[in-house]
């Protein structure tokens, strides 16, 4: 029997001003699975992610997280839910004025009562997981794009979130770093039982990590299912994506 979705989106509509970006989106995200949101550039993938996380306000519809409706939820109640989630932004979004250590310490210091030595230990381990131990005292401006992204991932997993959202985690990374990032995501899923939602274009990465695919086309969710089902479906937009991506 299939598990109950950890995130359930129903009839969601999102707009920028007068422009409708997402129309009537229905999508389910299941626990301990990697769900990849796919689609061509500008189809609304990041918008969907940010609407689920209330970084943008959806126009209408219903979003359930951990079995609780979040549309219209009080800000404080939603903040409590946010403590159970982590987000890796497309460009890392590290605070540039703080060293890597302090960036990762933010959620630990703000959301737990852990003693400083435990916090230091957690930060060292999380940085080691993303292979960035040497950068602990560096400023984000001293890091390369890939390093910044890995440091941001260390911050996103600082609190061992139940759901990890990643916006294009492997874009701009070399194939080796990208594969290492995918392995880490799988490790987080398998060992820590994390549910992971990823927006990506990278086909190689999708083949490595995806359990489920949600395909967006022109603001509509045209497909939802496993990777295998996506590759065998008869939806032209999905088929073209996988066919063209081969080359």
């Amino acid at each position, binding site marked *: 029997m299939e598990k109950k979705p950890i995130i359930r989106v129903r009839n969601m509509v999102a707009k920028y001003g007068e422009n409708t970006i997402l129309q009537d989106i229905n999508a389910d995200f299941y626990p301990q699975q990697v769900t990849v949101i796919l689609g061509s550039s500008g189809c609304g993938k990041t918008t969907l992610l940010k609407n689920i996380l209330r970084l943008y306000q959806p126009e209408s519809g219903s979003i359930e997280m951990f079995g609780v409706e979040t549309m219209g939820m009080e800000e404080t109640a939603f903040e409590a839910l946010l403590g159970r989630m982590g987000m890796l932004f497309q460009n890392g979004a590290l*605070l*540039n*004025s703080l060293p890597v250590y302090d960036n990762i310490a933010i959620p*630990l210091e703000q959301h*737990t*009562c*852990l*003693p400083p*030595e*435990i916090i*230091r*230990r*957690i930060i*060292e*381990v*999380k*940085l*080691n*997981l993303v292979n960035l*131990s*040497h950068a*602990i*005292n560096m*400023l*984000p*401006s001293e890091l390369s794009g890939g390093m910044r992204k890995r440091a941001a991932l260390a911050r996103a997993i600082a*609190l*061992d979130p139940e759901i990890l959202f990643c916006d294009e985690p492997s874009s701009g990374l070399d194939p080796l770093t990208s594969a290492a990032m995918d392995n880490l995501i799988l*490790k987080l899923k398998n*060992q*820590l039982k994390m549910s992971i939602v990823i927006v990506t274009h990278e086909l190689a990465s999708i083949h490595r990590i995806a359990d489920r695919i949600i395909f967006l086309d022109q603001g509509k969710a045209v497909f939802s299912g496993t990777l295998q089902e996506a590759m065998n479906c008869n939806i032209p937009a999905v088929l073209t994506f996988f066919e063209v991506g081969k080359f």
Partner: protein
Amino acid sequence: MKQENNTLFLDGAVTKVTVPALFAEQKNLDLNSITSIDGKNITELDSAGVAFIDGVLLQAKLTSSALVHLTSDHREQYHTFSSLALDAAPHVQSVPVFQQIGEGVLQWVSSLQDALYLTADIAFWSVVGLFNHKGQRKGAVEQQSLLIGVNAVGIVGLLSLVLGLILALQSAAQLRQFGANIYVADLIAISMVREMGPIITAILLAGRSGSAIASEIASMKVSEEIDALKMMAINPIRYIVVPKFHAITICMPLLVTLSNLVGILGGLIIGITYLDLSPTAFLNEVLNVLVLRDIVISLAKSEIFAWAIVIIGSYFGFHVKGGAEGVGRATTNSVVASIFAIILVDAIFSLVFYF
């Protein structure tokens, strides 16, 4: 958590929620006598829990093999998050006081050197830019003149008028006692032209335009726009700074002249309304007391102030470090340094020409 014989038994959740209490509890235990940690009854474990177990193992001088009876899931999690195998992270060493002083001095000398190079660059390209507009955006000087000069007319005029009114009012009360009402014109004319006009305009421009120059250049540096200009073989000083330099060179004397005139007008208003002076007598006295030398020094001084504002703003903009906070710091530092430089230059002018 309980200690029996030489074994520490952990039970229930060992997570970020329970670790603070466990951490406090562990201080009451005799960790030196522990030879193993039993994790059989752990129901939940996360990275904070692993960090706690590692801390106990280290204090008890044990290795990870002393952690026994973990479920396979927890064992796997423990290995993922254990910090025992990691090399100690580099800690920032504290620097001795004398080394800090020495480094501070060296840094100051290096900053001064950079500022001088920048000044030379700006001076060179400003002269070149007069004859060759290549490498500059069309209409940039006009646009900057509008921002630096025209948009400042209102505030400079208003402040100078208020300043003239206050100076005249304060001095009139004293001069009136000796029947020396007419000398209020001398006082206002000399103080506005020699000191107040140039300095109040310069301080206003340091706050208005100096901060804008620093923050604009710093933002461009942070967002790699300066690098992009360099990659397009465009000299950033020529493209960004020179138009501002030309604009402020044109606008500053005009603004100072406006400030002087409006300040004197403020004095005239007090002279007419409070001291019963006639406008003709007041203006005759002003013209008699002012000499060309005063006006020339006033304008020359204002040009030096203007150049200091642009050079200091550019210096802090180009030398920004960090992100958004760095931009804020560069802006603040540029305003503080510009005001300091203005007062210093003013003091030097006073010593050279009036001592």
